[in-house]
């Protein structure tokens, strides 16, 4: 009896994942149906290309280090633009009512949309690997920091996308969602840079909360469990808040 019960639970759980997949596919497709996806990809390639070539020709260094310093700042403007529509648009158009009256949990909607926006950032980062490949041809490369850098970028993007989704879940105005998302991401980004203004006993806490601190750790090629725990918990907490915001209609 017990075993049978477990199997049914497992099947139900897989069914839920299918719903997440359906929403994920729909959202990702609509990024590519509109210009959003292509604009994002071009912006990344252009900025990264400029940073990379200027360092190569001006200071004669072929390195990806500049890249990992610049992309986090590009994220600050590009990711809110990706995430602003996710829930705000549905609320404005009223389609949220169709979505939330389907046999779906609210968390499935949130996770599906989160994964789609995150995947878009990942897809936009892919073409930047071209620069990595050229460096491999030019000489010996320490692969560790590059792998760590990209992993760090992905984790950072995940946190930013979750924050942007949260911003989109509290308003039906996309511009408000953009600005709110930008501000929250900027705050997370700046935390470890304002430590001189912070009372001494709080510095380690504030530093720990800053996203760039953990990104730098991973980008150095050192993958520490504390950093992974940070990304995981911030992600989980932010997504949870988005689900709560979506459920606010029920209060």
């Amino acid at each position, binding site marked *: 009896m017990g075993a049978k019960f477990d199997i049914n639970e497992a099947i139900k759980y897989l*069914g839920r994942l*299918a*719903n997440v997949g*359906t*929403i994920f596919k*729909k959202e990702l*497709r*609509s990024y590519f*149906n*509109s210009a959003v996806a292509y604009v994002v990809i071009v912006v990344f390639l252009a900025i990264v290309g400029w940073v990379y070539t200027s360092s190569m020709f001006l200071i004669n260094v072929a390195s990806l280090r500049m890249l990992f310093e610049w992309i986090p700042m590009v994220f600050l403007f590009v990711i809110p633009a990706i995430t602003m529509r996710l829930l705000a648009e549905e609320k404005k*158009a*009223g*389609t949220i*009512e*169709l*979505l*939330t*009256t*389907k*046999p*779906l949990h609210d968390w499935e909607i949130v996770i599906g949309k989160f994964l789609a926006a995150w995947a878009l950032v990942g897809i936009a980062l892919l073409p930047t690997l071209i620069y990595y490949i050229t460096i491999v041809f030019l000489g010996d490369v320490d692969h560790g920091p590059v792998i760590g850098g990209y992993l760090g970028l992905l984790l950072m993007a995940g946190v930013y996308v979750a924050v942007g989704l949260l911003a989109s879940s509290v308003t039906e105005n996309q511009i408000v969602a953009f600005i709110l998302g930008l501000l929250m991401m900027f705050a997370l980004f700046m935390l470890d840079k304002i430590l001189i203004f912070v009372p001494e006993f709080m510095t380690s806490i504030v530093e720990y909360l800053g996203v760039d601190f953990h990104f730098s750790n991973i980008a150095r090629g050192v993958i520490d469990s504390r950093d992974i725990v940070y990304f995981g918990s911030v992600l989980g907490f932010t997504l949870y808040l988005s689900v709560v915001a979506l459920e606010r*209609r*029920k209060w």
Partner: protein
Amino acid sequence: MAIAVRNLTKLYDTEKAVNDISFDVKTGEILGFLGPNGAGKTTTMKIITCYMPPTSGSVEVEGFDIAEHSFEVRKKIGYLPEMNPLYLDMNVVGYLEYSAQLHGLKNAMLRSRIKEMIDVCGIASVRHKDIGELSKGFRQRVGLAQAMIHDPEVLILDEPTSGLDPNQIVEIRNLIRQLGRAKTVVLSTHILSEVQATCDRVIIINEGTIVADGTLEQLRQDFRGSEKISLELKANVSNAMTDMYPKFKEIPQVESVEYGGEEGDLHKFSIHTVKGSDVREEIFRRSVSEGWVLLEMSRKATSLEEVFHKLTTAE
């Protein structure tokens, strides 16, 4: 019983949008939910479809409680929200596919349902267009197709014809009629003729409470109320108020008599009678026996518009 609503109340902050309403919808019935804007129709529908919970009270759909078995309820309901929201950047087939997948349809079943809905709703010619390019009439058809994609037992349609032109209204009403043969349908509207054209039964709701519930014929009967009979008589009397007025007033079914004034020997009266009576014959006899000449007599039956107006305006 397809839907059973019991003592449903919904508070927005302190304002009662729906105030302790109860009603049943029988399987296969097309129920019109009629009321002025802001009466609580949409709120009631949002609760039945599990969009938001009630403050108190309960709803059962096909025997499933909305709070305890929300997913079972959702599977059994097809919903067309107010203003028919749609993803304008999706094409028709893609949108129906998305809706079907979220209802758990797969493969052959999914394809056959989409095909069937496209046929039933008459949207084959626009199936590959983006929804944003469609006319309002076609959008409404897509909205209905979406609502029925999983072959639900119950259809909840919130103002399905609002914003359409007269031809489109007729088309959509016919479509709802046709669909209604196999399903239980609840549709809301603030237009009375809509109910007359499509519904078996009507519930009139005003300020969050049900003020009438029945078939159209029942309502017409129940609210016929005091009918008004207008009279014009030619009579040679010195004082109409003392000589003529009492003769009409003393007829048992007459509730009140108004004297409408005189022009020479012409006198006008308005006579209000109690529900379901007809005193025209009696008026005629009395006039003849008194020697008055009856020049005009007309009875005005209460129309459904008047019933609706009476029920939904604060006295």
